[in-house]
Every structure is written in structure tokens, then in C-alpha cells.
């Protein structure tokens, strides 16, 4: 990486920045006692200055876009690039900067633009299409029931994250990819380091290298003894070199873990904190599909913003974003935008929330969303049906929220039944 590409040197004081503007920093801190709500500073920006300047961890600055329509515009417009190698690209952590710019092998298609992005993504679109994922329902249901059987066997309390919310998506993605589940401690620990806001560049690089080495080794094994997993099919295509195979495998493995796991645990907690909504969902199980969309909207676990960099000057609202300037799209405030979701700060399992952008927007929108939906629908419906007495086992104030992670949620969820 050349000095000129370093974000802190690519940014200067912006001429549009009002002298009186409060210093808005991202990631921003949530209000004490409101762990489901976006940070008050970012919420205020949505209401008062929806396209605003913000300061990142390294002192560099970028634009912060907070309204639903503007976020959709940025994420859907090729004048905003997802290519992390471009000068001015905003990084949320030292680790993410290291990952995106370190080596060629650490680059993935989510940080590339079309046509290269489309070429790589289309190798995977068939694997996650709706009818293929829908056909997995019996298997996901079986895994769900087995985990709940084990969790409730002779006991009446457990950590829902460790015993249910994390193992379920982990088992499913391992099965789909063809990754041995017995290695889960290894790759879950590395995945957590990569997604932590606290990891140093060195820690992130080490975790990244270990995961790449693991996937490279696995690719060699699949070449010799192919199975019917996605990873074997990618290897057999012969279109990707070993570095590309390893980085794509690593991306799929990480993406399948933290997201659905945290949505499952955080959704459970949100329902326990909203007993009226919980009772309604229990009495009308047919609401589950819509309830999952509403929980995705309300919780928006990709909570620190989606990064882009402008490739030409673009006017958004009354602001002009210049070529080379970074932009962070706040999905969580966009999903509370009153213009699209009236009463957006309220969880309402009966709401039509399909226009939420919890999976992002534009050509980079989450590829695994049909799988995430099936897993969440089955996990939540089964959990509520099988454990009618489900409750928190500790005071709400003692729940460890993941303020320190790129994906929001809870580190643990002690429950009883």
C-alpha cells in the first residue's frame, strides 16, 4: 500500500462542512438503556442533516448517509464504488483496512465492482437461489430440533447463543460448503477477530492468513476427493486460482456465521422485551415470515454502515459528494426512516417491512438472504413453540451487547424455560 492510498492522507477538511457542525464520529455510541435503537447522534443526523460529515477511528473523515432513499441511491448507483483499493475508501477498523488492502488473496467480490464482481458472484447465485434453499427446510428443521433436544435435555437454563443461535447457522453453512463442522472452534474464533472493532491490524492479518491457509488446504482436499458441497463445485469449475478459491471460501464461511447467529439471538431478546409482540407471534405462527422481515428491519445488525467511495461528483440532497470521497451508508437509521416505516422505532410483527435494507441494497445485496430467511423462520418459530416458558435468566442490564463488533447482537443470552 502506498502512502498516497492511506485514508487519513486522502482526506482533507471538506469545504462543505459547516463550521458549527457537531463532531459526529462513527462507529457511534448507542444511548444507555436503548440497546435496540441506533446511536442518538446518527438518528439526529437522519432528522436534521441526512447527508453529513463524520469522523472515523483513524481521524479521517467521510460522508454519512442516513435516510432510506439516499442509502438506496448510493448503494444502487455505480458512481459509488465498492472497490476498497480505491483511494478514499472509508474503513471502519484497522482490521478491515488491513483485510481489504493487504494482499490480493484478501480481496473478495464484495469489495470489487462489476464486471469482476458480477463474474465472481454469478458463480454462487445458483447455490443460494430461493427454490434450492427452500428445499433445505427439512434439513434445517432437523438440525434445529436436534440442537433444542440437546439444550433442553434434563436442564431448564442455557446460553442461547452458545447452544443454539451460533451452532445452527454454523452447522448449515458447513454442510452447504462441505467444511468439517468439527473445526468450528478454529474458524469461529478467527471470524470473531476479523469482525471485532477492537482487533489490531496485526491480529486481523494473522486471523485472515490462518483462515486462508485453512481454506487453501481444504481446496486441495476437495480437488482430490470432491463431495457435493459448494466448495467442491467451485474448485471443480477450474475458473479460480488457489488464492481466489481460498478467499471466496473464507468469505462464505464467515458470512454464514455471525450474521444469522446474531439475528437469531437478538430477535429472541427483542421479542422477550416486547411481550405483546411475542404473544401475538405465538398465537399466530403464520405471521413468522413477516415477523422475520420486521425483526431484520428493527434490529439491522450490520449496524456501523456500509462503505463506498464516489468515483465522480454526485449531488445527494443539497450536498455534493466529490470523486474520491468516502461514504458510509447507515442501514439502521434508514430502516427506522419514518418516510418508509411509520412508527419505525416500534417493533410490530404485523408490519409489512419488506422494503427494509437490512441485507443492503444494489448489486452487492446479501447473496445468502434466502438462506438467512429460512434459518430465521425455522429457528424462531421452533424455539417459541417448543419453549412456551422462555425467559431471561439474568437481569436485562447484564446482557453483554456486541457494541465492539461489526455485526451487532449479544455475546451471550442466558435464558431459562
Amino acid at each position, binding site marked *: 500500500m502506498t502512502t498516497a492510498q492511506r485514508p487519513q492522507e486522502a482526506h482533507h477538511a471538506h469545504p462543505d462542512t459547516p463550521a458549527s457542525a457537531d463532531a459526529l464520529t462513527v462507529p457511534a455510541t448507542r444511548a444507555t438503556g436503548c440497546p435496540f435503537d441506533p446511536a442518538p447522534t446518527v438518528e439526529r443526523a437522519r432528522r436534521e442533516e441526512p447527508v453529513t460529515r463524520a469522523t472515523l477511528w483513524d481521524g479521517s473523515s467521510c460522508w454519512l448517509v442516513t435516510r432510506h432513499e439516499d442509502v438506496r441511491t448510493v448503494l*444502487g448507483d455505480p458512481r459509488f464504488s465498492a472497490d476498497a483499493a480505491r483511494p478514499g475508501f472509508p474503513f471502519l477498523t484497522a482490521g478491515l483496512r488491513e483485510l481489504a488492502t493487504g494482499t490480493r488473496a484478501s480481496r473478495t467480490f464484495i469489495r470489487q465492482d462489476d464486471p469482476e464482481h458480477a463474474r465472481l458472484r*454469478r458463480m454462487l*447465485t*445458483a447455490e*443460494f437461489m430461493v427454490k434450492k434453499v427452500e428445499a433445505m427446510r427439512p434439513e434445517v428443521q432437523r438440525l434445529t430440533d436436534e440442537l433444542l433436544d440437546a439444550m433442553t435435555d434434563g436442564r431448564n437454563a442455557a446460553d442461547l447463543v452458545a447452544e443454539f443461535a451460533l451452532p445452527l447457522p454454523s452447522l448449515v453453512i458447513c454442510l452447504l460448503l462441505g467444511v468439517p463442522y468439527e473445526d468450528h472452534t478454529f474458524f469461529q474464533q478467527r471470524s470473531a477477530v476479523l469482525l471485532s472493532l477492537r482487533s489490531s491490524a496485526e491480529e486481523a492479518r494473522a486471523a485472515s492468513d490462518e483462515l486462508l491457509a485453512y481454506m487453501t488446504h481444504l481446496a486441495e482436499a476437495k480437488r482430490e476427493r470432491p463431495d457435493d458441497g459448494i466448495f467442491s463445485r467451485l474448485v471443480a469449475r477450474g475458473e479460480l486460482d488457489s488464492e481466489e478459491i481460498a478467499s471466496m471460501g473464507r468469505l462464505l464461511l464467515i458470512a454464514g456465521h455471525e450474521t444469522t447467529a446474531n439475528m437469531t439471538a437478538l430477535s429472541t431478546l427483542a421479542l422477550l422485551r416486547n411481550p405483546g409482540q411475542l404473544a401475538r407471534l405465538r398465537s399466530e405462527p403464520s405471521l413468522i415470515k413477516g415477523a422475520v422481515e420486521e425483526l431484520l428491519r428493527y434490529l439491522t445488525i450490520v449496524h456501523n454502515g456500509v462503505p463506498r467511495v464516489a468515483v465522480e461528483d454526485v449531488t445527494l440532497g443539497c450536498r455534493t459528494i466529490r470523486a474520491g470521497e468516502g461514504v458510509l451508508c447507515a442501514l439502521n437509521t434508514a430502516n427506522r426512516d419514518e418516510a418508509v416505516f411509520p412508527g419505525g422505532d416500534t417493533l410490530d410483527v404485523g408490519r409489512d417491512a*419488506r422494503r427494509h435494507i437490512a441485507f443492503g*441494497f444494489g448489486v452487492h445485496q446479501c447473496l445468502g*438472504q434466502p438462506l438467512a430467511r429460512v434459518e430465521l423462520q425455522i429457528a424462531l418459530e421452533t424455539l417459541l413453540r417448543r419453549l412456551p416458558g422462555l425467559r431471561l435468566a439474568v437481569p436485562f442490564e447484564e446482557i453483554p451487547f456486541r457494541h465492539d463488533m461489526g455485526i451487532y447482537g449479544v455475546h451471550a443470552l442466558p435464558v431459562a424455560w
Partner: protein
Amino acid sequence: MRIHADQEKCCGAGSCVLAAPDVFDQRDEDGIVVVLDAEPPAALHDAVREAAAICPAAAISVTD
């Protein structure tokens, strides 16, 4: 109503299939959008408009 889906733009996220399963499907080989009924009955128009609105790649257009 007449539907056009741009297969070049489509990113295979599948949201149209979930919004209007009688109108949209995905190609087996690559998950790209397929229109099952380009002139759907009125009862499906709202679902189709929703599918167009949530398509992340703006690949679906509708003319009345």
C-alpha cells in the same frame, strides 16, 4: 401490466421470487431472474410492483 426483467442487471438475490412467486422464478444454472408471466392478472399487480420496488439491482420494470 407488462413486465420486463433485465437478466444482465439481475444479481440473483431472489427477492422478486419471494414477493411474487407466481410471476418470477430463477434460472436453475445461475439463479438469474426468469419471468413466468409477463402480463399477470390484476390480482398480482401489487405483488409485482413490490417485487420491482425491492429489486436491489433495479432489474425489474413495469408498464401499465
